């Protein structure tokens, strides 16, 4: 039987049944910007960074199945402009001060901002007040950097079987919460060995006493921009992310 394929920015791209546009693109070593997608977890299409134009319609590539003969636009000025704007909104909604962040150089939000040449957050800063949770002996929670991707929610629920994290609230009041009566991480059954401790694409869930372990210049996204690290993104493991 003929191999099914679709056109990704004009390139014939093969796919198998049950593969999304994102899956097929990653398999073909083509980068589609994304934040909430992770190959290990069920996609939810919430960050919208992976929006592509499939047969003329804007869709999340991580939740849209590839179809034979489909025409998909990905790396276009129009889409990248929209993605940049979404990044800018994420930056101003939280407190993203890269110079003081332990995740800097390993952060997907930052790496995407570089990739899409975001030079300024453009919008007025919200400067929200989000106290950190340093209660846990091994892990720090810095909510200032949360982008609501729900990777920790999915990892804790689907892999660890603990459901330590959830999102609460609506719209701009939406925020990450911890499943404990006190709301503190120390009072949950969270552990550093949980999968959820190692999936945060930004600097919210951080192992204590381990910050700034890799020198500037040798960090993940110092060496190569994220757009050239599709293989690494496709094969993300605890080791790489730790």
């Amino acid at each position, binding site marked *: 039987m003929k191999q099914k394929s679709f056109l990704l920015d004009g390139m014939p791209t093969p796919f198998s049944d049950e593969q999304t546009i994102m899956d097929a693109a990653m398999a073909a070593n083509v980068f589609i910007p994304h934040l909430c997608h992770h190959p290990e977890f069920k996609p939810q299409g919430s960050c919208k960074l992976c929006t592509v134009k499939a047969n003329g319609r804007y869709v999340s590539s991580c939740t849209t199945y590839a179809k034979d003969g489909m025409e998909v636009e990905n790396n276009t000025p129009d889409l990248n402009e929209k993605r940049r704007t979404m990044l800018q909104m994420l930056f101003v909604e939280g407190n993203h*001060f*890269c110079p003081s962040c332990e995740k800097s150089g390993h952060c997907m939000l930052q790496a995407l901002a570089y990739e899409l040449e975001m*030079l*300024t*957050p453009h919008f007025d800063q919200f400067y929200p007040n989000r106290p950190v949770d340093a209660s846990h002996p091994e892990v720090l929670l810095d909510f200032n950097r949360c982008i609501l991707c729900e990777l920790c929610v999915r990892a804790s629920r689907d892999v660890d079987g603990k459901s330590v994290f959830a999102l609460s609230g609506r719209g701009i009041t939406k925020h990450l919460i911890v499943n404990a009566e006190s709301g503190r991480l120390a009072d949950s059954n969270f552990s550093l060995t949980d999968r959820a401790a190692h999936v945060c694409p930004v600097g919210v869930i951080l192992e204590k006493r381990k910050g700034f372990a890799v020198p500037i210049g040798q960090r993940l996204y110092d060496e190569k*921009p994220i757009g050239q690290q599709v293989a690494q993104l496709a094969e993300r493991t605890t080791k790489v992310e730790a």
Partner: protein
Amino acid sequence: MSAVMEKRKVRLATTSLAGCFGCHMSFLDIDERLLDLVELVEFDRSPLTDIKHCGPCDIGLIEGGVCNAENVHVLREFRQNCKVLIAIGACAVNGGLPAQRNHLDLGQCLQEVYLTGEGVVNGQIPNDQELPLPLNKVHPIDEIVRIDYFIPGCPPSGDAIWKFLTDLLEGRTPRLGHPMLHFD
């Protein structure tokens, strides 16, 4: 070549508002290229010249965010006088380190630092009319005036500043690729 035909030097002004002068230090990191730069530009107001007020300029480089009333005046003076205004460094771009105070109450900050803090004896909150009043919150400069270009980084490297300025001076759209574009 007659004086009339000689290419006029571009006038460049620089200042640091709520910054640490780190971006200016990084600017000096262009090292011997400073000699190439002074062939092309003439410095107006800048810590390098000690000129106190900005005259009509082609390019203004602003380091630091806006944390007090004087910062607002200086920034507006630059905007009025510079054809192209560039935000340089994390503080100018997004408030940076000084903006980390934004979730704290300013009055309580001043009280703790000058009155009730550990080891403070006979303290008083500074209240000289020479001192500019602090703003309630620290702001990136593009929340006060229009900014034409942004060079992020804490600080941006000398190479990044050089690339950006030479692109601009030679009429290209300034562009920082990997690895010169960084936020830390």
